[in-house]
Each structure stands twice: as structure tokens, then as C-alpha cells.
């Protein structure tokens, strides 16, 4: 018998624990279902002649088939529960299961958003307590809780800024927003969604905002700057207060992208740095699970100057009772979402914060920064740090160490997959060539980091020793080899279409 290999695959295509799985539609049947219902009575209908006659065309599966389908799919995923997930800017930390348990208490999970307020006092209390934690940790007087994710929080902050500018009668004049070249793509996209135009602020040689260049761009037509701090190069903006002062002197506002708050939570209050608005990704800093791309939550803290423009709804406490204010004031810029925000993320985040306490939150920031600097120190013997000096919570490398090897950043990343790691963030930030941004978070042990660093050092040496072809072929042990993204975009197939049987 031939030993199975890519050239001699198994009969099934399976590889032991890796089991190939068809689409659910290719498994199920149109008359099949995995849910039992009581018999329906014949009452006639009151659908006004608009009942559905057409086929839906979606097969069903029995319960065991459904379980097996999704369990097999799950085994094709990498996850933080399996190993390091060092995606820079994404803060993939441990997701405590206590959070899941709290979120599933019927008093939270089975609670209708439009119940009378007398029936939801505990939920409003939780929102108010989480708001207190967020305000206290950031040193800001107000927080809008309803934004559904980081980018939605950015939108909330920039909407508040726009409302404030219009209230000053400067809406027509202040139309420019400045953001560093290294900004997350959401920043310029958000500014444009608010009707602003965006200009880039260049970085200086140390990877930080070029203060002189920023000052030159400031004027009475600037609405705001959007700056991430610590920034996307993993560095604290040393001139942050000078930046804030310059913007304020020019009559603009300082929006801070809080994606990297994990590095400084419990250590530094953004309010002390002159920030006017900042979103907080509860799914990054406060450990609510990323769930394969969401849901997130993006509560947005606001300075006193922006507080009155906050969206509805919000919670206030009066006479020992909590009230959900849903009616818009004249100043409020409006509403972000149908209900009150990501309650399921609030419960999880508060469980995490209470578990850590303020002492633990500070230790988190310190360990996250320590782990990143440890990785930086250990890897710089073979890899090339993009900037000199210490980093904050993430270590940024460029691709100089791969020069003339024939190996590119993407190949290096794909080779990490075969070593059992999720790759780091690659080709971001844009200001660094072939960027590799590593954020280990505080959740990794020294033992795990040592193995990770040893593996990357070994890969770097192999790249330099002329093994480019092996890198180009990676990954070979993953459930799939490299996928053809060009073909996917050229002729998009975005849904399953039933195969018509021909007889």
C-alpha cells in the first residue's frame, strides 16, 4: 500500500482527525428537518394574500447531521483557545468562560429590549456600572454605550464632534479631518461617512506623528484629528499632549482610536492626555470573544465638551432607580442603533473587569507590554525591528531580514501556520515595508512565548539559508493549502446554487 501523501491522498480525502465536510445543502433534504413541532391546526390564514408560495430552497438536516457538520467545520479553525494568536492591533486574549456563564443568565439573555423599565432594573444597573468603570479607567466624564463595534464607536465619536462643530456654527467651515498614514482603515472611512474629507499626517523617523507636519496642516478648517495611541506601530505617541494642545488651539477636536487601550488600561487615563472622544473595543481590551469576526462592542467615552451631543438611549440614575432615556434632546446627534447596545458584551466585559479589579487591569497592561518587549528582544537577533527602542503591547518588524531571500512577509506568515501558529498581522501598518505586527497579549506564558520565539527564529534562519521554495509552498499541514483569492474576486461565487438533476 502506498503511504498517503498529497500525491496519494486517502480514499475519502480525510486526514485522520481532519475530516472533509460538504456544504450543509449538499447533505440535507428539502423535506427533512432537525426540529420537531406540535401539529398545526387548520385555522386558515390572515396573511392578506401575501403568503409565500415559492420554494425557499433550503434543505434541512437532522440533529446528529447538524452537530457533526458544525463540529467538523470547527476543527478547521485556529483559535486563541488552541494557541498563540499574535495578531497585532487585534488583542486576541484569553476569553474567560465565567463571562459566558454570566451572559447566559436568563435575567440577561432572555430579556426583551422593550420591556417596561421596572422589569429591567438589574440590566440598567449593569450598564450603569460598566459605564462607571469605563469613565473611571479613561478619566472621561461621559460614555455612549450603544455603539456596536469599534468602527461604530468611531462613528459615534465623530458624529458628536460634527454636532459640536455645527452647534458652534462652524459646520460649513470645518470639513477636514487629519489622520496618520499608519491609521486603521476604519478612521478615514468613518470620517468620510460623517461628510468630512481626510488628509494624512506623515510619520516621523521614530514611527510617531510628525508634530511639525501636523501643525502645518492645522487651521480653522480642521474639525478633528484621529490618532491611535498607543499607535499602530506599537508605540506611545510621546508628543501626545502637544498634539492635543495644537489641535485644541486650532479649534479642532482630538478623536483617539482606542483599539490599543490594552497597553495602558489601569496605567494611564486618556482623559489626562487631552482626548475628546475615544471608543473602547470591549472585544479587545475586555476579553469578550471575537467569535470569528464579531460581535464586538464599542462604547465611546466623551469629554465634557461633547457630552451633550451624545446619542440616545442612555441610562441615568434618579432617586435610587435607573432610567433609560430614549427621547432625543435638541442637542443629541441622534441614535446609533435600534436598542441599547451590545448587552451580551456588557455582561461579559463587566465580569472580566470585576474579576481583574483595577489592580488586575493594571497588571494586564504591564504583562501585555512586557510580553511584547520580550518577543521584540528575543526576535531582533534574526528579524529586523521597524523602529528602535522599546515598544508598547505589540512588536513591529519590517521585511529587511528577508531581503534577497526570495521569501516575502506572506510566505513567512504562511510558514508559521505549519508550525502551529496563527500568523501575526501582516502588511499593516502601511508605513512599514512588509510589516509584521506581533501582539502576544498578557495571556501567553513565558514558556509559550519562548517556543513561539524559537520557532520564528528558526523560520528566519531557514529563510536566510535559501529555502524560499519551501516557504512559497507553505502551508502544507493546514486543512487547506493557499487559496486562490484572485480567482475568487474575478468571478465571485457567493452562494451555493442547487445542482439541477439531469436525467
Amino acid at each position, binding site marked *: 500500500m502506498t503511504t498517503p501523501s498529497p500525491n496519494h491522498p486517502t480514499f475519502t480525502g480525510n486526514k485522520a482527525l481532519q475530516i472533509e465536510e460538504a456544504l450543509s445543502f449538499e447533505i440535507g433534504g428539502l423535506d427533512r428537518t432537525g426540529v420537531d413541532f406540535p401539529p398545526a391546526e387548520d385555522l386558515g390564514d390572515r396573511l392578506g394574500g401575501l403568503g409565500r408560495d415559492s420554494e425557499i430552497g433550503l434543505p434541512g438536516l437532522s440533529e446528529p447531521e447538524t452537530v457533526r457538520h458544525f463540529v467538523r467545520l470547527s476543527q478547521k479553525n485556529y*483559535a486563541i483557545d488552541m494557541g498563540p494568536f499574535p495578531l497585532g492591533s487585534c488583542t486576541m486574549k484569553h476569553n474567560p468562560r465565567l463571562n459566558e456563564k454570566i451572559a447566559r443568565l436568563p*435575567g440577561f439573555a432572555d*430579556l*426583551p429590549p422593550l420591556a417596561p423599565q421596572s422589569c429591567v432594573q438589574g*440590566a440598567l444597573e449593569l450598564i450603569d456600572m460598566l459605564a462607571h468603570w469605563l469613565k473611571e479607567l479613561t478619566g472621561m466624564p461621559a460614555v455612549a454605550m450603544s455603539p456596536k463595534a469599534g468602527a461604530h464607536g468611531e462613528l459615534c465619536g465623530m458624529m458628536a464632534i460634527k454636532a459640536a462643530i455645527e452647534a458652534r456654527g462652524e459646520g460649513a467651515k470645518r470639513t477636514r479631518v487629519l489622520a496618520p498614514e499608519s491609521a486603521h482603515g476604519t478612521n478615514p472611512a468613518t470620517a468620510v*461617512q460623517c461628510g468630512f474629507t481626510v488628509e494624512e499626517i506623515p510619520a516621523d523617523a521614530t514611527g510617531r506623528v510628525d508634530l511639525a507636519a501636523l501643525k502645518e496642516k492645522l487651521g480653522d478648517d480642521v474639525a478633528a484629528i484621529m490618532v491611535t495611541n498607543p499607535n499602530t506601530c506599537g508605540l506611545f505617541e510621546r508628543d501626545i499632549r502637544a498634539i492635543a494642545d495644537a489641535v485644541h488651539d486650532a479649534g479642532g477636536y482630538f478623536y483617539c482610536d482606542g483599539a490599543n487601550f490594552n497597553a495602558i488600561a489601569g496605567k494611564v487615563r486618556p482623559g489626562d*492626555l487631552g482626548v475628546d472622544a475615544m471608543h473602547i473595543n470591549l472585544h479587545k481590551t475586555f476579553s469578550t470573544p471575537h467569535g470569528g469576526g464579531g460581535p464586538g462592542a464599542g462604547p465611546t467615552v466623551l469629554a465634557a465638551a461633547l457630552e451633550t451631543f451624545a446619542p440616545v438611549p442612555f441610562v441615568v440614575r434618579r432617586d435610587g432607580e435607573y432610567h433609560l432615556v430614549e427621547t432625543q434632546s435638541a442637542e443629541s446627534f441622534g441614535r446609533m442603533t435600534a436598542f441599547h447596545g451590545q448587552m451580551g458584551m456588557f455582561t461579559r466585559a463587566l465580569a472580566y473587569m470585576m474579576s481583574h479589579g483595577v489592580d488586575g487591569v493594571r497588571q494586564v497592561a504591564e504583562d501585555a507590554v512586557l510580553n511584547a518587549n520580550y518577543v521584540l528582544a528575543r526576535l531582533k537577533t534574526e528579524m529586523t525591528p521597524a523602529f528602535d527602542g522599546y515598544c508598547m503591547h505589540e512588536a513591529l518588524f519590517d521585511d529587511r531580514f528577508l531581503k534577497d531571500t526570495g521569501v516575502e512577509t506572506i510566505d513567512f506568515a504562511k510558514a508559521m501556520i505549519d508550525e502551529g501558529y496563527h500568523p501575526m498581522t501582516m502588511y499593516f501598518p502601511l508605513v512599514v515595508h512588509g510589516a509584521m505586527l506581533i501582539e502576544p497579549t498578557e495571556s*501567553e506564558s513565558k514558556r509559550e512565548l519562548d517556543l513561539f520565539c524559537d520557532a520564528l527564529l528558526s523560520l528566519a534562519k531557514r529563510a536566510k539559508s535559501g529555502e524560499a521554495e519551501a516557504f512559497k509552498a507553505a*502551508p502544507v499541514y493546514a486543512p487547506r493549502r493557499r*487559496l486562490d483569492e484572485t480567482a475568487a474576486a474575478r468571478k465571485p461565487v457567493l452562494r451555493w446554487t442547487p445542482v439541477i438533476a439531469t436525467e
Partner: protein
Amino acid sequence: MRYLPLNDADRSAMLKTIGAAKIDDLFDDVPADVLNASFDLPTHAGELEVERALGAMAAKNRAAGDGPFFIGGGAYKHHIPATVDHIIQRSEFLTAYTPYQPEIAQGTLQYLFEFQTQVAALSGMEVANASMYDGSTGCAEAALMARRITKRKKAVLSGGLHPHYGAVTRTNLELLKDEVVAAPADVSGSEDMTAMIDDETACVIVQTPDVFGNIRDLAPIAEVAHAKGAVLVAVVTEAVSLGGLKSPGEMGADIFVGEGQSLGNGLGFGGPYVGLFATRQKYLRQMPGRLCGETTDADGKRGFVLTLSTREQHIRRDKATSNICTNSGLCVLAFTIHMTLLGQAGLRKLALLNHQAACKTADALSAINGVEVINKAYFNEFTLRLPKNASDVVDKLAAQGALAGVPGGRLWPGDPGAENLLIVAASECTTDVDIETFAAKLRGALS
């Protein structure tokens, strides 16, 4: 601390490797006077203490399952099969990131592809994306997409659109100085939307069943919208209705926006939910949000990747179709598992049971003196006109352990025409006893 693997010996050894004397040396870029601020917050607590404190808060709330329950208004109580919550708690789904490395994210990508297929089939549209935050934000995104398609700056909102959806859409469009024309709240579902569409109209947004529960025929609106070069956005807040009613696609909608919470996702006090978003093939490149597409790998095997990212913020930045990044991944999975279990056969049955529960509830309540069911046609939600202020009635019944519905005053505060309206939803969870209890208590509250 139980979540932190490093101990002090590790920390010292690591600082030594780094070449730093103490941890704060690593924070030397931070202005010294703001480093190590003090906070008025409690210190760490064990699992038992946290559970006790938050459990006490949960216990202060009245859950939907605690008694007779008839609240809808954009979020619906349905039975979720046990399989759903079990699978979404698997580590490989729960603790994965956005599938940017497709070789080790085929699990997420394949369910996104299945989800897109399900949403397209349910809505009768050609292509669906991998989700929005929820129905209301999807509604605003649809309006923004329509202005990109038509290059026009006027949105027309039906009087049957959930007022919070209207508010979210208005908030987004007014930023861009667009005109938003909203029809007055239309409890009877008899407004003539076609008269409001003109040559300047970018989109007309109509909900069905509407916020009062009326089933709307979109076909005549689609015809006029298309004749005027406008885009018809169909909003559905109750996904189960798609199993029982003509689909938006069949009625000529150009963009479908839905709240997918009803399938697989609990009420959760308003979120996280899952926004459904689908459109015609010809508008694909104007869509917001992530898309998953089929392709092959280096060995020729079928696989899936995120695709057409040139519409998205991480590639296109200020030229992106939307700023959305994180979406509703895990809620998508819950939706997909529930829909996979149901299949079309199960969904049709579920829809029928919902409709019947609503018919029975309506019959029981309309038998009460002074109570009028306004709707002619409805699915699982309808509106009553009471002889009294509905908010007062709802509060009174809540004190007696019954959650009666959404009073008009909650959704249209200050509108005297809405004060006596009560929007009532039923579902497969509604029992005959629930209906009898509700009817008896309502009769008592009105007498």
C-alpha cells in the same frame, strides 16, 4: 490572578532579557505625571464573588420566560434548539478571529458561505453579505448604498418603519446633508408610498410586516420606484416571517435588510443581534460589509475566502463603501445552525405556528369590550387600540407578572395618536394558558 500566566520570577527574567530594570522603564514614552494614575475602582475578585454580584443583578430583571410574554417591536422570543448554543460555545468558533488567514479558518468561512446562501434564499435576493451589526444599522447602510447607486440625496421612509430604524437612518443621512422624508406613523398600513417617490428619490424604505404588524405588498411600490429610478429597500424585523410570507425579492425589492435575531439568537436586552443584508447581483460592488466567496486551493480542493475586499475600509480606506469592520460573526453562526436544523420544511412549520399563535391571541383579546384589533393582515404581531393609555396598562400587567406588548407611547413618545396603541407579538412559545392569562388580566385592567 487566574487569567495571568506570568509570575514575578518570569517577569524578572523577562525584564533581564529585555535589558530593562523595571516595568515602568517600558512606559518611558508616557509623560511621567500621568503614568500610574489612581482609580476609584474595586480590586480583583474570585469567580464566586463575581457570579454572586452579577447574578443578583440578573435576578432583578423579569425574563421573557418568567410568565406570559407578548413583547415584540423588532426583537422576538423564539425557542432556540439546544444544539445551537452548544456549538457556538466551541472554542474553535468562539475564540477565532475574522478569517483573514483562510487556510486555518475554513470553519468560519464555510458557515459564512452557508449563511449568505440562506439569507439570499430566504429574502429571494441574489447575493447576501456576511452580516451587519443588526437590522437597524443595516437599514442605514442600505440608504447609504442607495445614494451611491442613484447618486441622489433623498430618502423616503414609510410610516410603518420601526421608528428606531428611522432614527438610525436619519442620523446617518443627515450627517451628509441628505433630505429624509418620513411619512407619519401609519397604524393601518394604508399609506400610499408611491405618491412620495419622485425623480430625486434615492431610496424608499418600507418594512413588512411593518412595525404595527401589517403585511405590506411591496410590488406596487417597487414598480413606481423603478420607474422613477429609485431603489426599494425592504426591511424585515422578524426573520421567521420570511418562511411564511412572499419574499422581498419576489415583490421587487432592490435591497433587503433584516434583523436575524429571531433565528438562533436570544433577546439579550437588544444585542448582539445579526443584520441580514442582501441585494441584486448588479449592485454587488456597492454593498457594504464582508463577503465570503468560493475558490480552490493549491491542490485544487474547494475552499472559501473573504473576497471583493476592495470595497472595504481596510483596503479602500476613505473610498470604502462603509466603515464596518467587525460584524456579527458568532450570531451569524447561531442563525446558520438554527436555519440548518429547520430547513425550509421546518421554517414553514415554524412560521405557521407563529401565525396561528397570533391569530388565537388576537381573537381572545378582541373579544374584550373596547379592544379593537386594527390589522387586516398580520403575521405574528398586531396592534390593538385600547380604550385607555397603553403604557399604563402595560405597567399594570407587568406588576401582575405578564409582559403585555409594546405600548405606542414607548415608540412614539409624545404622539397622542399612539398613546392607546398596544403592539402585541406571539410565537411558537405562546401557550393557550398564556393567552387566557393575558386576556383575563387585560380585561381586569380595562374594567
